[in-house]
């Protein structure tokens, strides 16, 4: 296999990239400066060699502890549980959350043989237990999918008896959308989760 074929083969394994897009990316790189291409290659190697899971929360990290866990200004009394590490960024970008995270690494999925043992559940429970009451609230930010909901039910069952308040991200009308075009389930959930003004 030629170098070009090898690269386009690698690209086409990435999600959302078909063989045509893969070839287009390769052609783009052929035309780009060699420095640009080498910088891309180094970035890829760095991600492979340096990034790993944070020892405490499972977030992406280049050290034992991620930037969030090692930041002394974060609020250690609130823990936000997400399914995947890339979701930490989505919440961080809001600038509204000052607490810490815990990454499950997936969701309950019995069809794929994924139960609590395949997820970072034991570490989460040990972390709450080990905080001796310092963690006062656990926000469950799993997805609103069928599996994300079941995972939240399971976590609530496990965490509530340990003491912390367990909350769930509110679901409702997407910002900027007309009520007329929002489906009934979403409106019903938004109604159930309404708040005082």
């Amino acid at each position, binding site marked *: 296999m030629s170098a070009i074929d090898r690269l386009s083969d690698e690209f086409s394994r990435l999600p959302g990239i078909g063989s045509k897009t893969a070839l287009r990316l390769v052609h783009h790189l052929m035309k780009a400066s060699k420095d640009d291409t080498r910088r891309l290659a180094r970035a890829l190697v760095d991600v492979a060699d340096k990034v790993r899971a944070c020892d405490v929360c499972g977030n992406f990290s280049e050290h034992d502890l991620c930037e969030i866990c090692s930041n002394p200004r974060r609020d250690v009394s609130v823990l936000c549980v997400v399914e995947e590490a890339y979701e930490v960024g989505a919440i961080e970008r809001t600038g509204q959350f000052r607490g810490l995270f815990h990454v499950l690494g997936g969701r309950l999925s019995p069809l794929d043989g994924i139960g609590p043992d395949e997820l970072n559940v034991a570490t989460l429970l040990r972390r709450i237990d080990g905080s001796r009451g310092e963690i006062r609230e656990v926000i469950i930010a799993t997805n609103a999918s*069928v599996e994300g*909901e079941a995972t939240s039910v399971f976590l609530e069952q496990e965490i509530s008896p340990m003491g912390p308040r367990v909350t769930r991200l509110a679901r409702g009308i997407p910002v900027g959308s007309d009520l007329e075009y929002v489906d*009934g389930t979403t409106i019903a959930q938004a109604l159930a989760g309404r708040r005082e003004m």
Partner: protein
Amino acid sequence: MHLSALSLRHFRNLRNQELELPREGVALIGDNAQGKSNFLEAIYYLETLRSFRGARDAQMLGFGEEVFRVVGTTEGGDDEPRGVQVAAAFQKKGKRKKVSVDGTEPDRLTDALGHLSAVIFSPSDVDLVSGGPSERRRFLDIVLSLNEPGYVRALSDYRKSLSRRNAALRAGQPWSLVSVWDQGLIRAGAEIMVARRDWIGTRASAFGDYYARVSGGRRARMTYRPNVSLEDAASTDAVEHAFREALEAARDREARRGVTVAGPHRDDVRLQLSDEGDDLDLRDYGSGGQRRTAALALRLVEAMTIRERRSRRPMILLDDVFAELDGGRSERILELMDGEDTGQVVLTAPKDADVRIRRDALPRWRIQAGEITT
């Protein structure tokens, strides 16, 4: 609103054809196995994005072909001012289905459902009455998916929760891991039960009327037979509560059998002859003619649902439906359809004598070996 143009590419034996359909409809005449039903299947594919005969997409590819494509254009009328173009294609490689509405791919395939507002009548409809409960559930699910906002979503959530709960049960997981699926199952399941109960409840008398008018006298009844007992459960909350209790009561049995036994996936619709004192189940005791009449009545109620819920005149597709009905019944159905507020009619028949709907006003097309001549 009516279907004004239809473009076919390699759909079954229909090959490549561009057809313009008359506003009132058309009668397609041809011998058996020439492709009459395929033509209706192609039209109805644009309504539900699946075969009304239960065929898989790959089975509808023309012989040796890689892709089929059906494009329908509707023209507005007084019931629906704006026309729409629905295109559906299937590619054998990767089993890819591609659907667009006015050139745009919807976020979800289900957003493209129901643009023709069509109802199809076919001889296999008798299975709705003679077949098992799953036939009747499928009927309900299609009618409600097309006419009740939110039903498709509830059905999809229910199936997801159910398959995962069953996987947990099958794997013998502890109850704390089985029951995490209950909340989703119960919420979606209650929505489904309420929608089914409402639909059957509000249309049971129409079903009885249609049956009486086609049969020329006797009446029939349609009642909801939910798997979860809903006797005192009026509100959705109460239905959820009843479902939760049913699951709790079934817990030992479910753990033993490794499958969820309570819920709307085991619902049924009972169809009975209701005169002469006791009610006879049509499935067990109905004659062939009575069962076919009940099936027709169900389809007429479906058409009525489209009129009521979508405020459109339903397009009527008739697949050789008079072949197996006696003369009296056929006449009464034709009268009934002429009298109802229906839209375009597309029917198939083996010979000219069968085409009397709309007082012979329908233009006649012929089909031979998949080739349609207008």
